[in-house]
């Protein structure tokens, strides 16, 4: 008997497809929620993405009690406390987060405060602090990449202390994730590309890192197949709602995969680069993915080779000798990045970003080495190894 063991958990109800938003009133009523609060940001409101959500609720006689639309890109403990204050003042009984990673994380943190009580979110920071289910919480993602709608983590900045507070609990998972293609139809090309590559990285690392398991593998491969099939079509036809839905579903599936099998060095380097150079997360993922796969190659040859089937399809997979499939998978990812660069100049190297200087590489390497994701990378990473990967990713 081997020591193989895994855990898999995803209780989030996924409501996906045409007119998915119109299911929100029914789902809220099913949880005895009558006074929902929307948590979102100015960009989402300006893009007109709130209207279909509000209309869907009002048509069913459900009034949105309060809307907070000022979530910043890096949400803070002050913002969370303020929103919780409004929630209590307006006697809301449920939360609908509409937006990307920041709005969703803010919604999760607000839900902790309004369910557990108090004004100090910092005291709930850490793993396993929450012991009870929270208020009804729904998520409507407006980007197709983060997968936050199916993860049990939130990160909120403590401005006073200048640190990022992590919150981890299965109670943070929303009751439902509503995936409606209308919400991603207007995403600009470079965000579509970067967020899709974020999802691609979630799935690829979930499939090749240490905590991979049969269930997360199934979600990861399905996500990679959808992204490979749909991303370039959507880049060429942004109003292709079927393609948009495919990418949104892929993002959720990749989220389910990586939240159950974790990620590795791509994320460790990406988190450090984001913190030091303020580059968007999805861009960092796209940038580092092939270089990290090359670094890990000999430890992940078999699973990486399997991914060729989902990246390039059965014909290419069958025509490629088994011993060359892992390299072919990396080539397929490089080819996809080249195609995205051609369409929206999504950078492929650190130099192409124009926002990173060569003298920052050492700092990035040092910070990446202390990132939690590095624990799950299949190959041990030393400081010199991290520096070498960064040098390859430089130009």
């Amino acid at each position, binding site marked *: 008997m081997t020591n193989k063991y895994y855990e898999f958990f995803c209780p989030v109800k996924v409501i996906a497809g045409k007119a998915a938003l119109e299911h929100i009133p029914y789902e809220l009523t099913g949880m005895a929620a009558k006074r929902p609060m929307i948590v979102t940001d100015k960009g989402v409101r300006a893009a007109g993405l709130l209207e279909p959500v509000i209309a869907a609720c009002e048509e069913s006689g459900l009034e949105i009690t309060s809307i907070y639309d000022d979530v910043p890109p890096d949400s803070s403990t002050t913002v969370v406390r303020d929103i919780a204050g409004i929630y209590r003042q307006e006697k809301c009984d449920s939360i609908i987060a509409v937006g990307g990673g920041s709005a969703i994380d803010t919604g999760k943190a607000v839900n902790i405060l309004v369910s557990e009580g108090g004004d100090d979110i910092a005291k709930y920071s850490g793993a396993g602090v929450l012991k009870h289910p929270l208020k009804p919480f729904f998520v409507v993602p407006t980007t197709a990449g983060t997968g936050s709608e199916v993860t049990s983590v939130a990160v909120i900045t403590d401005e006073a202390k200048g640190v990022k507070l992590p919150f981890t609990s299965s109670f943070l998972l929303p009751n439902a994730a509503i995936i409606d293609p209308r919400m991603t139809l207007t995403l600009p090309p470079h965000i579509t590309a970067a967020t899709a590559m974020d999802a691609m990285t979630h799935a690829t690392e979930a499939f090749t890192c240490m*905590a991979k398991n049969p269930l997360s593998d199934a979600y990861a491969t399905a996500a990679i197949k959808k992204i490979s099939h749909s991303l370039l079509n959507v880049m060429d036809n942004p109003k292709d709602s079927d393609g948009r839905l495919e990418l949104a579903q892929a993002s959720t599936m990749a989220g389910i995969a990586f939240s159950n099998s974790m990620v590795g060095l791509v994320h460790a380097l990406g988190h450090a680069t984001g913190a030091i150079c303020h580059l968007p997360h999805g861009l960092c993922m796209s940038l580092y993915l092939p270089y990290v796969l090359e670094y890990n190659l000999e430890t992940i040859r078999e699973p990486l080779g399997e991914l060729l089937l989902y990246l390039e399809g059965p014909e290419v997979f069958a025509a490629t000798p088994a011993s060359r499939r892992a390299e072919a998978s990396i080539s397929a990812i490089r080819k996809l990045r080249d195609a995205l660069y051609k369409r929206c100049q999504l950078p492929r190297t650190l130099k192409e970003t124009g926002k990173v200087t060569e003298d920052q590489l050492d700092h990035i390497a040092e910070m990446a080495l202390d990132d939690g994701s590095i624990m799950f990378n299949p190959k041990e990473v030393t400081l010199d190894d991290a520096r070498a990967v960064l040098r390859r990713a430089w130009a």
Partner: protein
Amino acid sequence: MLAKRIQPMVFQARRLYVELMFQVMGRALQAVSEVDEKVQNEARALPDGFLFEMMVMPDGSKLIVEHTGQGRFRYHGDKSPRPVDLSIQFKHIAHAFLVLSFQEKTSVAFANDRMLVDGDISYAVRMTRVLNRLESFILPKLIAERAVKEYPADLHLPEKLISAARIYLKVATNFVETVRA
């Protein structure tokens, strides 16, 4: 029938083994921080007075070490002078036994959800590197390869033997001092 009778003894033996290994590891952490520069460099990033705990949930065996500054650790046994800053917790004694008997690598135990981290993850990553370095020194290479993700390529036999001898000597001295006290 026989198996049922033996089972409590097996459980007791496993508990004693885990307890003993925690005592050895705690003392060895203190010792390795006195002999190895790489461990000292890793530990220097921890705040002075930082308390690290490894324990078996819910209230089983534990080891507590403190970073006293300059990259040095001090072993506190299983009693913490104040609330710990970082705790790595095995969910069950069976999981601690798997790791401490080198049937499962520390990194694999994390990946398999056998352990929880309570505290700053970046410090947990750092302490895992320290534990890996320690295991690479004090275990024969064949066993160390089962315990760590990757055996350090730059750790050659003479350095390993000399460091291991110094660590074991310090651990033994510490045990004797504890008994005398």
